[in-house]
């Protein structure tokens, strides 16, 4: 009954040169070449990308939903990290 489908890979696509790579989905493949070829066939049938990253799923380290508070909240009260915190004299105009 169990016959292997190969490990899972996460696929990231770059739409155009210069743009960031964005996660588009995952797939099964036995090795790197197969992961790239499968990604090409599965995720770029309509010219959706010019470059592909394929990453073994088990190599990805992810934050946990339970940690949202302690992990991200410290940034919330540091408004001075945003440009809108500062007053610029009207005479100066755009800065």
């Amino acid at each position: 009954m169990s016959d292997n489908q190969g490990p899972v890979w996460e696929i990231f696509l770059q739409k155009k040169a210069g743009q960031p790579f964005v996660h588009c989905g995952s797939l099964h493949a036995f090795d790197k070449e197969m992961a790239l070829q499968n990604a090409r066939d599965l995720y770029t049938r309509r010219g959706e990308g010019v470059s592909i990253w394929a990453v073994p799923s088990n190599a990805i380290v992810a934050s946990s939903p339970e940690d949202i508070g302690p992990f991200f909240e410290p940034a919330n009260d540091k408004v001075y990290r945003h440009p809108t915190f500062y007053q610029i004299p009207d005479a100066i105009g755009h800065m």
Partner: protein
Amino acid sequence: MEENKFEEVFESKLAKNEMVEPKDWMPENYRKHLIRQISQHAHSEIVGMLPEGNWITRAPSLRAKVVLLAKVQDEGGHGLYLYTAAETLGVSRDELLNNLHTGKAKYSSIFNYPTLTWADIGAVGWLVDGAAIMNQVMLQRTSYGPYARAMVRICKEESFHQRQGFEIMTHLAFGTADQKAMAQDALNRWWYPTMMMFGPPDSESPNSENALKWRIKRETNDQLRQKFVNQTVPQVEYLGLTVPDKNLKWNESKKGYDYSEPDWVEFKNVISGNGPCNKQRLLARNKAHKEGAWVREAAQAFARKRKEVYEAA
């Protein structure tokens, strides 16, 4: 105590229309419902390749053939997007495929009907994909993130499927008398099976209540069916064809058509394995999987060997 707090977070997410992601806590029944629904959806895409694949070698022109090939390839891709979405819920691809091959899992009843003529390929693209899109547009806003994202991609790709089907229907409906008769015959055979695709009436749909509560679905079976009829009837009229339903009538008070229900006894029969093509479809899937085993084994052996060489160096 802990469990209650998690449940609160989950409920508040749904209430705020936020998406649930794979690592979030979710009730066990929500997970089960999603695995069932997403895998059925995936199986439908994969089995759906069979009735159309039946006509690839007999497409009436090279243009029709490349279009049909592209469409069938898309369906295969859609099946794969959906399988990986289901796998984020902790079920393996092997398990999912095994459930399909042993007949334990279901797929859409529509794919158990045969494609007898070229007009059927038109009717499948126009009606069956049209109905599927109606359901899938709703599912783009389903509450489970990976499912919703797969749906966005699928909807983008599917819009050509319905158009190519309608194009085939226009060629036939505005062609010779024989061609028009062929188009009408296909419409006659596919109308009610397509209506069944939205599932049993709301009053008899066992899974609907939870699906709506959890925002997996956002419209009921009957609402979607009504939408489909309203959208499709003007298209039938454009083609100069007739919907095989004597009770079909515009109802001004509900701004929609009144229509006859499909034969729900037939639906139950087909779902439980006794449709015209159930056996054939399962045999074809099992055969393809078995005959592809050597490819998977060879790829696996090759990857293992390469890794050994790499590690030795």
